[in-house]
């Protein structure tokens, strides 16, 4: 399983990447929405993208819209991981095409539970086909 972690904070990318790596993901990182689009264009396609909202150059909401516009990327699961926490913001992100929404601050348990809801917890090593 592959994941793309998009956040302008290196510290936050490191935290998210460590949790994902710990449950069996290969993680690539991007520092803003535009970088994320570049990474996606290069491939390989990730199964999951964890996306911060407020970032320079291109914010996370715009990234969600751009990813959703591309039919080739339709099967990537998008999860906002952001400190934006108003009811209206969550509704906006879901309407734009995000599948899940994790509010910062979060614990590693809550991130794992969100992945569980999405059916994106990789099987333990040895049972994964390819």
């Amino acid at each position: 399983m592959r994941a793309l972690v998009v956040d302008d904070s290196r510290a936050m990318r490191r935290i998210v990447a460590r949790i994902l790596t710990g449950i069996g993901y290969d993680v690539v990182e991007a520092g803003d929405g535009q970088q994320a689009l570049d990474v996606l264009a290069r491939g390989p396609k990730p199964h999951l993208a964890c996306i911060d909202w407020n970032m320079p150059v291109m914010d996370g909401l715009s990234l969600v819209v751009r990813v959703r516009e591309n039919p080739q990327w339709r099967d990537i699961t998008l999860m906002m991981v952001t400190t934006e926490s108003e009811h209206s913001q969550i509704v906006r992100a879901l309407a734009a095409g995000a599948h899940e929404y994790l509010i910062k601050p979060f614990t590693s348990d809550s991130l794992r539970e969100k992945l569980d809801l999405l059916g994106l917890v990789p099987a333990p090593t040895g049972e994964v086909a390819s």
Partner: protein
Amino acid sequence: MTIAPEAFTFVRDLVRRESAIVLDTGKEYLVESRLTPLARQAGQVDVNAFVSALRSRYNPVLTRQVVEALTTNETSWFRDGDPFAALRSDLFPALARNRPSRQLRVWCAACSSGQEPYSVAMTALDTPALTGWKVEIVATDLNEEVLARARAGTYSQLEVNRGLPATTLVRHFTRDGAHWRITPALAAAVTFRPLNLVRPFPAMGTFDVVLLRNVLIYFDLPTKRDILRRVRQVLSPDGYLFLGAAEMTMGVDDSWERVPAGRSSVYQVRGDAR
């Protein structure tokens, strides 16, 4: 003061055994800060002394307090997902076919801070077969303090991050300052009242579904047996009983049979014991 490794291990094992919630290594700070008030209350000099006392003599009331103190922010919505998926896809529709009154009653018998009964309420509200039905959820707990929290229906950011799908969050909660508040529809579906499972149950009527998850572990065998017998008396003949994922009636009360429900399993009273 720092908590001694053996004290942490003991507390972690206790919490895992009694609530099926796992406190990872690194949560030492949490154990220390949450147990300090309990240690003071118990007249112990610090958490290590408090844990030693807890180890030397089993105290069910104190044990429950310890578990509750440590599971705040660690309690998930739709915990162990499968029972709620089974309610929505199988059990609620099955019951709906046999209830011309269009009414269902559910009992959450150890509701703690309310995540379980509200999860049942959200499941019922989101089950198409129950549209327009009256679903009444009675939620009970021994501890008045957690009942007050549950009744208030406000949860921290950390609490709503636990296992609650975002679509469900925006449908059933609103922001209230630093917290999230359940909608009036959800609040109206659940009634909270104090109840001690060990004593005879008060008059509560009959239930179609009973959730008695991760609570029997607190009791010895004869008490478990007695509780299950009395639960049988308040469960409708075609009703369902949920226990915790690792709990069984086998060897405790053989009037029950385990039946599959979705990816989960549930208990029903055997035909000959009804």
